[in-house]
């Protein structure tokens, strides 16, 4: 039942001839943690969108001096793709019930994520070496701000990765693993998309 149909319901009238569960009783067949994650991702999307809107608006001021992005960001992008793929691989293996496959996927995802964060710090260092530490230039400030906020989100995700890895090590129930790995995978894919948008914007401006 669509949202408009649902909002047309007349609850003050007795239900006529309805023997089956109405679809609107549970708005989603998804499990609650997945719904919770999607709500959180909606909030995070608003957050990053607002940063981008402010970025684009601030660009129009005369004191904006574009900077040349360090080459290592390309490498970092590749590493983040590997990380996201690792989670996808682990997620696929939860469907197959292959514990070894899950371990491999999680290990690859974790290592790549740490490598990504290290790479971002390296990019900061390269920028400083290039002389981009004049914070009065908003382009410089935004670079540190956007990469920092994205990195903090990834760092938060690594807490979930750590807990999921602990469950795998303890050989928890496969349904539980499917849930945890699935949630991590969705989150990492989201962070990858966010990074691609941010990186694209940084390159274009």
């Amino acid at each position, binding site marked *: 039942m669509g949202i408009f149909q*649902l*909002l*047309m*319901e*007349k*609850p*003050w009238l*007795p*239900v*006529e*001839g*309805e*023997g*089956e*569960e*109405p679809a*609107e*009783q*549970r*708005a*989603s067949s998804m499990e*609650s*943690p997945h*719904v*919770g994650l999607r*709500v*959180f991702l*909606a*909030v995070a999307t*608003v*957050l990053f969108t*607002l*940063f981008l809107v*402010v970025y684009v*608006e*601030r660009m129009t*001021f*005369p*004191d904006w001096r574009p900077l040349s992005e360090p080459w290592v960001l390309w490498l970092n992008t590749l590493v983040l793709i590997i990380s996201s793929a690792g989670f996808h691989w682990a997620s696929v293996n939860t469907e197959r019930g292959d514990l070894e496959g899950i371990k491999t996927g999680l290990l690859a995802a974790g290592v790549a994520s740490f490598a990504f964060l290290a790479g971002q710090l390296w990019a900061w260092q390269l920028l400083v070496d290039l002389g981009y530490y004049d*914070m*009065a*230039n*908003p382009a*410089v*400030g*935004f670079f*540190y*701000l956007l990469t920092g*906020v994205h990195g903090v989100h990834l760092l938060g995700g690594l807490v979930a990765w750590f807990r999921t890895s602990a469950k795998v090590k303890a050989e928890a129930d496969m349904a539980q693993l499917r849930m945890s790995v699935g949630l991590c995978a969705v989150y990492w894919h989201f962070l990858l998309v966010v990074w691609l948008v941010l990186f694209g914007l940084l390159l274009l401006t």
Partner: protein
Amino acid sequence: MAYVAPAEAEQIPAAEVEEVELYHAKSWVTKYVFSQDAKVIAIQYSTTAIAIGLVGLVLSWLMRLQLGFPEVFDFIEPSDYYQFITVHGMIMVIYLLTALFLGGFGNYLIPLMVGARDMVFPYVNMLSYWIYLGAVLLLITSFFVPGGATGAGWTLYPPQAILSGTPGSEGGIILMLVSLALFIIGFTMGGLNYVVTVLQARTRGMTLMRLPLTIWGIFTATVLALLAFPALFVGAVMMTFDKLLGTSFFMPAIVEMGEYLDYGGGSPLLFQHLFWFFGHPEVYIVALPAFGIVSDLISVHSRRHIFGYRMMVWAIVGIGALSFFVWAHHMYVSGMNPWFGFFFATTTLIIAVPTAIKVYNWTLTLWKGNIQFTLPMLFALAFIVTFVNGGITGLFLGNVVVDVPLSDTMFVVAHFHMVMGVAPILVVFGGIYHWYPLITGRMLHEGMGQFHFWVTFIGAYTIFLPLHYLGFLGVPRRYFEMGETNFIPESAQDLNAFVTVVALIVGVAQVVFFINLFWSLRNGKQAGSNPWKACSLEWRTAQVPPGHGNFDDLPVVYRWAYDYGVPGVDEDFIPQDLPPAQVSTGKGG
């Protein structure tokens, strides 16, 4: 039309909501301190919010003392005054009202009213409270750092918020910004719970359109908050960067004390847009739960079904959506393009339509109702009057041509105190008088309650109606002292002194409310299981107050929450979970 019981199978959805594994506390500490039970968390949220609200109240007294009797109280310096204004505003809007409506009422009522055992993510819910408490403590700490709390005004506009001429521009502003960021993180954790619990954990038969309007209000306000708070977060983080790292996101090239600062050409207006993109929905983050609660109070205490339930839901959702398109009406005097002002004036006036629908529906619910002048009803009626009053002055200020001369005068102060200060607080009181018997098993004392209501209601008007007049005279807001002016008569000062005296009396009268809360805990009349004869599920628990897990067996819902005075039915209410076959339709039968 007499009541005809439909066949049970026609009303009960076939599938059952799965039982959830409930967290059980193993010690006193995990049961009452680091609790994961939404009801305990609700009480923690409410206690903290009310405690910090009392700090806000004392700050308002200090401001009023200065305004009413300038040059009498030497201990109030101009910088103190600005700190009081700033922290009072921030406390009342965010740390009191938002936290109390969503963290307090939301946590207590959502699981009970939707027929769930608890919130869906209890651990995250617990974290939400402790982060909120951390935010509150940081805010208070800011008074004790060198330079004191920020005195930038609750809108924290740059550049003045972080320049050295403003009180608290050292540590105070940083603590305020970090406290806000923490609050938002904590709220997001709680908000996820409220939204997902409403979407996922409703009991069997509880369709979205059978939810009590209290839940619709809290749910929609939470969605608004989840989408609006990020704007404040972005603004707070970027301003912290400007202050600590010397970025120029908002800070323009500026001279301070004759010296050029290192800032580039940032845009203070960008911050204003971010702030109000959060700030206006914030009005409805506070108002929507109040709308929902008032709808339920009016229906229960007039023994009449809510008039136009469906329209009420649409209005709540419509107001929520529209609230994201009106923010710049707070910025008419910032030098915006006239067409931009025209657009925002139009959207502002449009939002009055769904709001008016709600007011009409409350009135029509009362029409021919069996009105019981109980304390919750008195507060609900007072809310309607006050909200209409504050709403109408909002129509004045929503129009650019009227707003410009009234901007930054006491008229604006009077308007927003009526509409989002007094009105929601009246609902908070109404809600507490209504649900106190559920939370404690005891009724609040009627006499003390009546005293509290009349002093608060009449007092609030005695305070804020004169402020409208002062605003028309041109008395500006935010001024520490008026000094001598040609355009404001001397009698304005007498009015200011009068308002201060009344504000002190109304503030002190709140002591009676707190005495009542504590006195009734032991001495209040036993409430029984459903003292107001309400239909909604929170009154259908196995015991009162509800125990851990709320219900013995999860209830099954057969109808909406407003079956009061149904023709042909013996009782004047039919609980949501009463099977149709058990509805008694013949006298004594």
